[in-house]
């Protein structure tokens, strides 16, 4: 019990939870935007890799850090555009296209990395984002180190949560995105472009996912490694459902996941392995399933998710 309170009472634990959650926040927001518009984007895992690689490589080749962030977002947007072309414009299977994008984005990133840097034997480093020191806030006792000593990308992620929520619930654009994910005919009948809205949502959503990847190589770490995304994209797909497609709950879900991970790492470090480590690693997934079961009945599924739309066709 003491250990529990020790861990939960330490500012570093909360800082770690937020840090671990950051890439998930980007990813879950991106997936949420796509799905709200009616497009499932299983390309997320690959888009994470592409963002991680492209952003890092840009900085390694001399771009500034924010330039790298931009390049990562562009890379994500590009794969998003491909996914949108296949699923929105051609109306092809969102499952297959998504898995294809993951395969493509991952292999293109790995291939590019290896072909661009054939002879590295120790991964080259960049000067990554450093935690900000916000005068006043960062120095607060407990709350300073817990909340306000993060890198700029973490704050960017939080800004995006607010921004996405604002756009979704407070602007006509958000109204249109929510409508197109529920019934594209409603949007078309009101003179808006179903294709335009969906393509836009997938492109922007994918750019956000790529920022999740960029965080890994430009903030959480300072080098690119093969396999370093390690399933984080898939977790976001689950978190979106957990969050019932709402940005606020998405943030909560990502933070919970981060907190759990930070907690199990600390528990292992402090009291060793009382049970096999895998049990802890499994728990977030099992808890997500339990949470899903609890929220499922109330979840407000975008009804047009997975449904292609072709103008002039009966649906």
């Amino acid at each position: 019990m003491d250990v529990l309170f020790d861990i939960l009472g330490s500012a570093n634990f909360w800082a770690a939870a937020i840090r671990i959650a950051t890439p998930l926040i980007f990813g879950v927001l991106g997936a949420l935007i796509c799905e709200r518009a009616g497009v499932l984007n299983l390309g997320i895992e690959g888009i994470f890799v592409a963002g991680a690689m492209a952003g890092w490589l840009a900085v390694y080749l001399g771009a500034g850090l924010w330039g790298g962030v931009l390049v990562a977002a562009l890379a994500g947007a590009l794969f998003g555009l491909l996914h949108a072309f296949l699923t929105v414009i051609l109306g092809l299977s969102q499952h297959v296209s998504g898995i294809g994008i993951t395969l493509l984005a991952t292999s293109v990133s790995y291939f590019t990395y290896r072909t661009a840097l054939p002879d590295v034997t120790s991964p080259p480093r960049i000067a990554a984002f450093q935690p900000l020191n916000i005068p006043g806030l960062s120095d607060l006792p407990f709350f300073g180190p817990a909340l306000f000593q993060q890198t700029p990308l973490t704050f960017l992620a939080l800004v995006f949560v607010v921004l996405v929520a604002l756009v979704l619930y407070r602007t006509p654009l958000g109204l249109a995105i929510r409508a197109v994910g529920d019934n594209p005919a409603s949007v078309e009948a009101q003179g808006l472009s179903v294709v335009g809205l969906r393509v836009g949502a997938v492109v922007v959503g994918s750019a956000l996912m790529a920022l999740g990847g960029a965080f890994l190589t430009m903030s959480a770490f300072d080098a690119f490694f093969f396999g370093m995304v390690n399933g984080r994209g898939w977790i976001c797909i689950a978190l979106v459902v957990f969050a019932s497609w709402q940005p606020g709950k998405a943030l909560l879900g990502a933070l919970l996941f981060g907190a759990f991970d930070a907690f199990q790492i600390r528990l292992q470090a402090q009291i060793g392995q009382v049970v096999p480590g895998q049990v802890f690693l499994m728990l977030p997934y099992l808890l997500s399933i339990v949470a899903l079961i609890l929220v499922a009945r109330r979840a407000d599924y975008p009804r047009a998710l997975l449904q292609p739309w072709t103008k002039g066709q009966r649906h």
Partner: protein
Amino acid sequence: MSLRLEPRDHASVSLKLTVSLAAGVIALLLVAVPVIAAGGTPLEAYWLMLQGAFGSMFALSETLNRATPLILTGLAAAVAFRAKLWNIGAEGQLYIGALAAVCVGSGLMQLPPVLMIPTVMVAGFLAGGLMMVIPTIIKQRFGADEVVITLLLNFVVILFIQMLVEGVLKDPLSMGWPQSVPLIAEAKLPKLLPRLRMHWGLITGLVAALILWLMVRKTVLGFEIRAVGENKAAARFAGIPVDATMLKVALISGGLAGLAGVGEVAGVKDYLSSDLSPGFGYSGIVVAMLAGLSPVGTVIAAVFVAAVFVGADSMSRATGISSYIADLVVALSLLCVLVGSFFLRFSVKFERRQVGA
């Protein structure tokens, strides 16, 4: 000039062939980009890919060996997707099937091969099936989305397997490496040809495809699965037991993925470890969709995907191009074939339209 799309009712065989061929050619043209970027010559690369996939008995056997689990996971996805049961969990079901095979086939009981092999297969089938039945029940009871649950269960299962092969199932003779005790000789699937890795799992896959084909076309169950998949409300209204049908689909789907796992341990590896499958479960989804969910098409698509991978991988070795190109070629081929499927559903017409002044 305007461009317009007209849905097709039917795609003729010759159209299908033309489209597949065109997709293949375009994929190859695209592959030239990374090949040239890595300093290779495309024509040589194409030839080496073909050689690598089909150029020798060994190459062919390797292609078919890789296709074996893909056929089974592809069928698993195809049968579930037909019923609109989105099973993304074939990867986990594969591992659970393999786990069951190891549990019953590593010395727990002694039976002659004629009995042992079927026992191992049935165990793997049931275990994999159960792994899909559970999320299906959860979906029916609580309305929780099966895409996410099956996806999440993949991670749970792999961690569970890691735990077992580092714990109770760990082979005391493995020098500390996390792997299970091996299967006994009687439980192993015989090889089809000496010195080649192809094994009886391939036959299992082909037979499964045949049975599914019959089921879809000729049986009441197949009829009911179609009805439930296409319109649940109408099926329920017409008196088809929707939930029971879904559970049958779940059992078959998970079971087939479980059989893929059995094939990998009993036919290829002999023991279980947490790296048994390089994503066969996920590739199965791709295979099934490429095949348009048709059982026979699944076999063809599985061989195609396997050949592309094995051929490209082998090409990378012969040319010194980074071996990551293999996945890149698979991805490009997949997307090209996917785009091709668009032309099977729609005909594109260019025409002049009269619009008065």
